[in-house]
């Protein structure tokens, strides 16, 4: 690989193997993962429970270290202890269970915690925290203790804390699983905005196939191996790909398939109820 190409890669995962136990015979959770993620990519990671998604993403900021192989962030190896703090500043992580991430006595402090360690001027910190609280709709909860929030509000607090830090890359592990659809859309909007306007790389783990459709790149894992890497559109274009990743196709895609079998001439890449409605109205006006 040429020097230039390597530079553009924010994350390089090379022959990564991982096992939680040091017993050699113990089964490997990650098996020979190879993956490059460039700066500014908008990536989703999908796969069944226990397939290794969280394990993989925890390698991306050195929370877990490879049993074999390597992970590099901006060219720095995660198992090089000196680089770890640089890596952690580049890659911010929102965990699957926000309880493990929230510990301050009020929401505002929790959101500010990460930014405060970044040696920024006070005024900048204040602006960033304000903005992050507002973008997650938490302003009215700023003085509440995080452990006294609803599950979804906790998730929002954890996300706001990472947004405020504006790291180069944000990794979110099922960040919206407890949120109502409106809040989900807000989170999606906030991270898309960071991605498009600030070039922030986003890696987003989810089980929600309709959410996955919003990303530019989809990586599917199954049993610790990458079984698909490409666009979401391609992933859902053939039943074979979701099947390989143990994923049931979303109802909208099933419906389009059924209608097509019945001879309704629909365009092939419908992926939302709105698009189906439009396509049906088009059909009717042509008749």
């Amino acid at each position: 690989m040429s020097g230039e190409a390597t530079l553009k890669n924010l994350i390089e995962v090379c022959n990564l193997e991982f096992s939680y136990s040091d017993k050699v015979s113990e089964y490997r959770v990650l098996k020979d993962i190879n993956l490059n993620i460039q700066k500014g990519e908008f990536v989703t990671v999908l796969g069944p429970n226990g397939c290794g998604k969280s394990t993989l993403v925890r390698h991306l900021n050195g929370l877990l270290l490879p049993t074999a192989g390597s992970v590099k962030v901006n060219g720095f190896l995660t198992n090089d202890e000196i680089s770890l703090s640089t890596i952690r500043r580049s890659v911010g992580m929102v965990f699957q269970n926000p309880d493990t991430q929230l510990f301050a006595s009020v929401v505002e402090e929790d959101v500010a915690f990460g930014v405060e360690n970044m040696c920024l001027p006070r005024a900048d910190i204040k602006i960033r925290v304000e903005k992050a609280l507002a973008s997650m709709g938490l302003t009215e909860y700023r003085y509440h203790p995080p452990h006294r929030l609803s599950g979804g509000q906790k998730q929002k607090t954890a996300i706001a804390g990472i947004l405020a830090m504006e790291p180069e890359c944000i990794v979110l592990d099922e960040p919206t699983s407890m949120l109502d659809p409106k809040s989900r859309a807000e989170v999606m909007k906030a991270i898309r905005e960071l991605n498009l306007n600030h070039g922030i790389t986003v890696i987003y783990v989810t089980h929600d196939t309709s959410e996955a459709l919003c990303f530019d790149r989809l990586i599917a894992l199954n049993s610790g191996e990458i079984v698909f890497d490409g666009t979401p559109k391609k992933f859902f274009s053939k039943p074979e790909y979701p099947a390989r990743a143990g994923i049931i196709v979303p109802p909208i895609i099933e419906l389009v398939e059924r209608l097509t079998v019945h001879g309704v001439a629909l365009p092939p890449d419908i992926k939302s109820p709105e698009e189906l409605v439009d396509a049906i109205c088009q059909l009717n006006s042509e008749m």
Partner: protein
Amino acid sequence: MSIEFRNVSYIYSKGTPIARQSLKDINLTINNGEWLVVMGPTGSGKSTLLQHLNGLLKPTAGTVLLDGSDINAAKSSLKSAREKVGLVFQYPEHQLFGSTVFEEVAYGPENFGFPKDEILGMVEASMNTVGLDFAKFKDRSPHELSGGEKRRVALAGVLASRPGIIALDEPTAGLDSAGKKHLVDTITRLNRESGITVIWVTHEITEIAPLADSLLVLEQGNTRGYGPLRDTLASPLLGELGLDLPVALQIANGLRKQGKQIQGCPVTIDEIEQEILSLVR
């Protein structure tokens, strides 16, 4: 088994500066064998309501009745509510404390005095029910599992005690698509075959809309809608609150907006498929 809420209100941290009224004058009747869905924006009081079902929270005002008697009347009624109502928490971590998955799942049946020789079978059966391979998972620590696996263990633990009422707080969150389907099928079977009463809190209505009987919609602790599921879905309420509608109904509503004729309130893929076919033919 039936549950009734009479004018139930709840205030967290009552009498402090952060006091928050999370339930306001809730009235509900859940009949034996009924399947109630509870929806509402994040923070609307769904989990608070659920924790009243087995006395984890005590109403600030009003009463919760289990088969006609106040669950908070005495220690004994509270104990019996804990046994009869299986509660699956929003975060499974909050209910996992055993050192192995087996111990975890066996805890309920042991505690509620099921005979020793039956327990092994009960644990194995409920692990199968949630799609956890018995041999593979029984000796593992519940704390060293993936998020979705933890959720399955928590579910198995609650199912193992064979409760008459099961209350599930966003149970499909964190489950993969096969796991979701499996869970919905399991609860449907328990509901249809064993007559278990179900209270299901969720943001995802598509899969369960064809199965459930009634729907309660909360907003800021208030009842915004309550009644037979299809009637409540047919009102514009859910859309106004930014909540999810079944995919079939989203399509039906979209088509209606474009001036197309759609019959009734389609909630399944089959139903909307028929409607669309009769439109285009």
